[in-house]
Structure formats: C-alpha cells, structure tokens
C-alpha cells in the first residue's frame, strides 16, 4: 500500500505487478472450480481483453489446454450513445471477435472494473445478439461498488470500498505500459 509519487499524484496503490499476477491466478482457480475448463472467456474493450488473455494463460498453466478468448465491443449497445448522448462525439468503435457460435457455451465476461454495471448490461445485450449461451458469468479484477443496475460479479479479484467520486485506475502493460491498480480522489491526474 505505497503512496505512489510521480504521474499518479496522491492516488493510493492497492495492487502492484506482482499483486495483479497473484490475483489473476486466484481468479483463474475460482473459474476452474466453478465451471471446469470448457469455457469461453470474453474480454470487454479495453482492459478486459488483456485480463482475459492472462486468465487464459493461467488456466492453461493448470489444465495444459488452451482456453479461447473472444473480444467484445459494447459501444453500439451503450445507453449513452445515440439520441441520449448530449451532443458529443461518438465513442470510437472497436472490434468484436467471437467464435463462430456461442450457443450453449459457458461464457465468462471479463472486465477490469465493475462500477455502475451499465457496461455489463450493454455487454449482455451484445452477447444475446450473437447467440444463446448456456450461462454467462462475470469476472472482474476490481469491484468498486456503486451499482446502478442489479448486476453482480461471480468472480472478483479485489473489492475496494470507494467513494462515488473517487477515481479507480487499472493500468496494464499491454494498454498503459505499466502495471498496477490505484485509487483516490479525482482531480489528481485522472484519466
């Protein structure tokens, strides 16, 4: 629990590189215990995707067999694009890539931070347009609370007690070039 100085200002670090690695290994074990190895991991853009890949690696380390990873862009299903969005430019669309059929599969949606639950609502709507999975579960690296919809994660890496206006930052080497989870009052180099 170091006080990271530098470009994170006064944010408090709650996980470092090693911490993230251990957390993901534990999450993979929980996934395996719940549903076995015949699952499909689906990462939600942006940071859900590297986490899904790392979970797949951790699963393979145990089972010796590869786990497929899909990519999901939820932008077209967001509740703040289209007519409800107050005259702002649209979010950039990203690639969705799922295996040919998701019918009857057990899907683990993977995201970095669970907050209001709106992203997950959009992700569920996106998924059902691709098929009818046997079950959809949710795995997140950080659950920071403050849900606005009746959504809960099945596997949680780290639960943080936060104020609503606090900033939670997950940084992963694949996306951000550094590793760690920080949180604290916003206005301190938020992103």
């Amino acid at each position, binding site marked *: 629990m170091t006080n990271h100085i530098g470009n994170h200002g006064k944010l408090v670090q709650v996980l470092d590189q090693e911490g993230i690695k251990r957390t993901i290994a534990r999450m993979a074990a929980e996934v395996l215990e719940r549903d076995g190895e015949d699952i499909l991991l689906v990462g939600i853009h942006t940071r859900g995707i590297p986490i899904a890949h790392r979970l797949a690696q951790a699963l393979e380390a145990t089972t010796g067999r590869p786990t497929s990873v899909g990519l999901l862009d939820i932008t077209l299903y967001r509740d703040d694009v289209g007519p409800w969005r107050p005259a702002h430019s649209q979010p950039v*669309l990203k690639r*969705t890539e799922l295996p040919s059929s998701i019918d009857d599969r057990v899907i683990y949606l993977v995201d970095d931070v669970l907050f209001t639950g709106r992203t997950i609502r959009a992700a569920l709507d996106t998924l059902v347009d691709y098929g009818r999975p046997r079950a959809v579960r949710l795995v997140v690296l950080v659950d920071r609370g403050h849900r606005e919809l009746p959504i809960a994660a099945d596997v949680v890496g780290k639960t943080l007690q936060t104020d609503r206006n606090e900033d939670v930052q997950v940084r992963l080497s694949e996306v951000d070039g550094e590793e760690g989870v920080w949180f604290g009052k916003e206005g301190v180099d938020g992103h």
Partner: protein
Amino acid sequence: MVIEAAAALSSKDLVGIAPLEAGEIQLLLDTAEQLLEVARRPIKKVPTLRGMTVINLFMEASTRTRFSFEVAEKRLSADTLNFSASTSSVSKGETLFDTARNLMAMAPDFIVIRHPNTGAPHRLAHVVTASVINAGDGSNEHPTQALLDAFTMRRHFGDLAGLKVVIAGDIRHSRVARSNAFLLSKMGAEVRFVAPASLLPPGVQELGVKPFLRLEPALEGADVVMMLRIQMERQKRMNFPSAREYFDFFGLTPERLKLANEGALVMHPGPMNRGVEIDSEVADGDQSVILEQVTNGVAIRMAILYLLAGGRSDAATDS
C-alpha cells in the same frame, strides 16, 4: 503520409466530400471497418439509433443507394420514412423549402436527400435542424459513394496514399467522379480521368486530376480501374457516335485490363451497362470488387449515421 483520424465530424451534415478534412474521412473509414461485422452476425441489428427517425427523400430515381441507406438505417434500429418524387407532393409543385418545413414538423433526426439540382442538400442543411446527408445532388457530389469506393480500396491496399486510380466514362455528368476526385486527392492518391473530350468537364485540372483522352495510357501502373456508367438519360445531344463505338474505344476489356498493375481492382458504382463501358468477362472476373462495393456501402452509411448522431463537439469520453 499518415493521416490521424479526427475525434468527431465537424458538421451536423454530410453534404459533400469537398468540405471534409482528411482526418474526418479517416474517422469515417475506421468506423465503417468495425460496422462491417454487424452484417455477419446472426442478428444483423444493433440498438444504437433506436428512437431516431430518418427521412429518405429521393427526388431522383435510385435503387441501390436508397436500399443501401435503408438497410444501414434499419441495422442501427432507426425508424425510416421514404419519400420519393413520384409519390410525394413534389410532383404536385411543392418547393423544396415547403417540403423541408413540412418534414421538420415530423421531427426527424436525419434527412437523406437525393436531388436533381446541385446544392439542394446544402440549402436544405441550412434550414433544418436535422442532419442532412447528401445521397447525390445533380452532377455535383455523391459523397457516400466516394466513401464506400475509398473504403473498398483501403480494405484491399491498406492505405489510399500513393494509389493510382483510373476513373473512366461519363466524367462530365458524374457526381461520383467529382466526389472521388475530392476524396482521393485529399488522401494522397493520384486520380486519372479518362473520357472522350466531349465527356470531360471543363476545368478538370482544378480538381487536381490528370485527364486522359485514351484509356490505354491511363491504365499503365493503375491500382484501381473505376468504370462509370454512360448515362444515356443525360445524353440529350449525343456526345459519341454510338454505344458500340464507345465500347470499342473506352470499354474495359480483358486485354485492356492487362495494361493495369497485376491485381488491379475493377470497380463500378452501378448500374452497369455491360458491353458499353465494361465487358461482362471483366465485370464478373477475379479482379472485380463490384459486389463488395455494395456490401461496403451499407457499412459506410452506418458509419455516417453513427457519427452524425453524436452531434458536434470535442473528444469522446470512454468509461
């Protein structure tokens, strides 16, 4: 030449390619790239524009452009209303402004307009709050066609900069040729217009293109060969002796196509006159991407609707 995609479109309307910046074109093409995937899903529809209304105002005949817009609108869950010249009050003498005022009373979010007069979409855009999309105005511009053509080229070559693009046919009457010339030169491609002198527009150099009076020399080193339809309905006085003679001099035959680069793309905005501007063997051959253009057209029109729906402002926020 690296062109950064803009964060947003700068206008509420898409009236032509001429007013667009290269970065805006890049944003449109990047967005279309992701929207192509919707057509390959079991459920080819996303909820993005639900509750929004689009009026398709077609004052001039069109099949593929109108269908393409309608498919794009429906795939984004917008509600669509279709007005065509023959069935609307326009045929009863109503002016464009009165039509527009009446349409606005129905609170549409978008008006897609095709009109025989140059500048009609621009004038409409000034008087309505809805986003106006030009689906072809007179012999001025057909921006969505140029975008889908560029999108098709980019998907094959990765980049537009440096491409040599031949556009051959009835250039004088072609809004497709004009929009393509604007777009391709903004993106760093070289455009070559080929037509008999009677079908080249005056001031062709001002468009930044190289004019050719023969097809063969223009084809040398070409990456893309785009054939335009000879618009029989616009040839009030004949600009060439006969369709047969036109084909003999300007038709794209397998032999002539060999003069272009190996693997050059053959494109046509449709509808084709087989045996007039293009040989059937070429139109149906391996190098033809004519049907891909149609598929890509839907994604491009979805991208335009999606980006215009966001309105005009600064950068997007991600959450």
